[in-house]
């Protein structure tokens, strides 16, 4: 392709990417290195309809001068990254010297918000990614094997979890597992434990989120695999059949190798998506039992006092996390293209 043509095609995309992806990331990184000014607090008397009380307030005149001198705030370097809500450098150093054995160390490490969130995020990602891809693959194989007439409806039904708005899909399941919902009641009846609550147990909450994650993302794998299955070379399949290969052998030695590039592509996307898990935690009200990095950003921004620097630092850590997770795949792709 001529350079000019390439540029004409690529320029709009590049501009959009620069404006809407690169610049915001620069702004987020900057934000994470600055924090609001030291607040000048003065003691005052506040009067409400109920009573007058001694209280404190921010001295706006004094704060105003600080703000005008340094509009970005005070430069704190990596302080936010290293504080207790993020990497918790000080706390970890203390853990190394104080904890009694690796078990105690882990227990106390997981008490720190960032590492607790990381534990859930990584578990979620490690379980949901392969299982949703596997489930999607088997559904695709199944749909591909049924008569053409039934395929349309089968595809529609298989895609439903993806068509339903994630929030709605999660809410439906949330109500079903409520202790008065159909699944909750059934489990109480089965276990004969009236105090059983899926929502009160961290383990059950994690399982519920993971099941939801698999259910809601399997259709993506299904669609990709179903499309991929249409491109499997028929003559290779036929010659395999003539050679007496069983159905399983054909899948194992013909179909799977053919679909490998698709699998790598999907794993990439799914790892990224699952690392940023957020919606299920909000819609299942699961914040008490499971947090993710994205959930922290949301929590920092939705309190009555917004923590912008903290949210920015978490965002940067999320981006770094995605890069680390994807690095093996990225390096491999780089090498492949380098060879070609």
């Amino acid at each position, binding site marked *: 392709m001529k350079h000019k043509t390439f540029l004409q095609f690529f320029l709009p995309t590049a501009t959009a990417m620069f404006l809407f992806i690169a610049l915001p990331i620069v702004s987020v990184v900057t934000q994470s290195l600055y924090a609001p000014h030291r607040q000048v607090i003065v003691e005052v008397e506040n009067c409400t309809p109920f009573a007058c009380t001694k209280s404190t307030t921010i001295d706006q005149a004094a704060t105003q001068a600080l703000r005008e001198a340094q509009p970005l705030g005070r430069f704190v370097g990596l302080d936010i990254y290293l504080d207790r809500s993020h990497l918790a450098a000080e706390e970890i150093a203390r853990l190394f010297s104080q904890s009694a054995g690796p078990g105690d160390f882990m227990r106390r490490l997981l008490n720190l918000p960032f590492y607790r969130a990381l534990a859930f995020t990584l578990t979620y990602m490690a379980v949901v990614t392969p299982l949703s891809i596997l489930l999607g693959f088997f559904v695709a194989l199944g749909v591909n094997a049924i008569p053409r007439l039934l395929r349309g409806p089968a595809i529609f039904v298989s895609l439903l979890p993806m068509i339903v708005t994630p929030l709605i899909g999660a809410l439906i399941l949330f109500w079903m597992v409520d202790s008065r919902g159909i699944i909750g009641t059934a489990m109480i009846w089965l276990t004969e434990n009236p105090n059983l609550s899926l929502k009160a147990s961290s383990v059950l909450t994690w399982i519920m989120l993971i099941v939801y994650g698999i259910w809601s993302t399997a259709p993506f794998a299904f669609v990709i695999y179903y499309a991929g299955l249409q491109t499997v070379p028929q003559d290779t399949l036929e010659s395999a059949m003539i050679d007496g290969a069983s159905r399983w052998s054909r899948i194992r030695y013909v179909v799977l190798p053919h679909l490998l590039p698709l699998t790598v592509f999907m794993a990439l996307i799914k790892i990224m998506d699952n690392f940023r898990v957020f919606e299920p935690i909000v819609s299942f009200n699961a914040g008490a039992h499971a947090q993710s990095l994205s959930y922290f950003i949301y929590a920092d921004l939705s*309190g009555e006092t917004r923590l912008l620097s903290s949210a920015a630092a978490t965002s940067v850590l999320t981006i770094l996390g995605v890069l680390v997770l994807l690095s093996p795949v990225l390096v491999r792709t780089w090498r492949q293209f380098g060879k070609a």
Partner: protein
Amino acid sequence: MHHKSIAALSFAAALSFAGVANANCGVTSGRVNIVGNEFPAIQTVAANAAKCAAGTMTVRSNLTANHQRINLPGMQGNPAEYTSAIVATSSIVALLNDDVIRPLDALVAAHGQDIPKNQLITVNGRVMAVAFMANSQHLVYRKDVLAQIGVQPPKTYEELLAAAKIIRERGIMRNPVGGAYQAGFNLGQEFVNMYMGYGGEFFKAGTAEPALNNPQGIATLEMMKALSAYMNPDFLTHDSNATSAEWRAGNVALMNMWGSRTGVLMEGPGNNPTIAANTAVGAPMTVGGGKTPATTLWWDGWTVAKNISDDDARATFVALKNGVSPAILTPETMGQAVWIIPGYKPAPVNQGVMDTMALGAKPYPMLPYMGLMHSALGDGLAPYLAGRKDAATTLADIEAAYRTAAKEKGFLR
């Protein structure tokens, strides 16, 4: 957030009342744009403020349950999009912290001489808001259930626990206590209530240093855990809405609930007549032998933005003064809230909030860093209630989380 109404309704909130009627408020120019929470009392205020529109003066309003997310950004510009925010005890703090609302003393002197002094909210001697209604959490109980077990409405949390035990033992209800214990704002609020009932202080006097990790803090946690043993096991996911639903379903006989949310349990559509007729309100309860009720008093009031022209500020002041004047009290609006407006006559449903005021409950702390403390509480209490952490560690961790946030915000070094 405490009287957040059904989310769906908030879509209908972006209403404009421009040019409804001309109430001749004496101002004919200026722009008024009000942002606020969405529930009947505030709708009444906004609708009455809109009646002032005359000449080139325009009055618009955006009432939504998400008001706290948009009021600050909507007032930081110059000129500000919103000329007034209707706020409550806790949400005014965010506006004060960022200096986006103006002192009203001059406007009160020029146009508001008739506003009763007790409606004026002053910070450091300057009027920053005008209150129009009060709210609090207090006891709500089922008359028939308490009569069945022969117990008087509880005056203390200890009595409530005893009553709950009897109700469970008699097999009347398995989990007779309701509570908005959803992790986050609701759970934080319940801690604030109980801790104040035990006489606890959140901060070392005059500073932003936390001071939770003390015997009152431990007692508060233990009482909350004791109560949660009589709640629906899903309690950590129940907000005020879900708790009200449990009430309507007849699963709960005793709860600590917002005054502004009780009316619909007694009169609202879709109630079971037996339950609604037996729903009664009581005074807020004390705890641990304390004299002050374990609850907080809240006011709702209006403010005027700083970054607007004096002309717009005057129009806003006059419109909202009209919006909360004694003339807005009609038989229809009377029961919508505990109005702090001359001429207000409380209905039986309002008795709980009236009692809260009479018993000398403390107002919710209006401190610049209270929001950070509330968030830290809301996030940090769940592990204790779920049985994963002991009380002292929980309080230490909450203090540590608060300290981290307060350092970032520049309140602590």
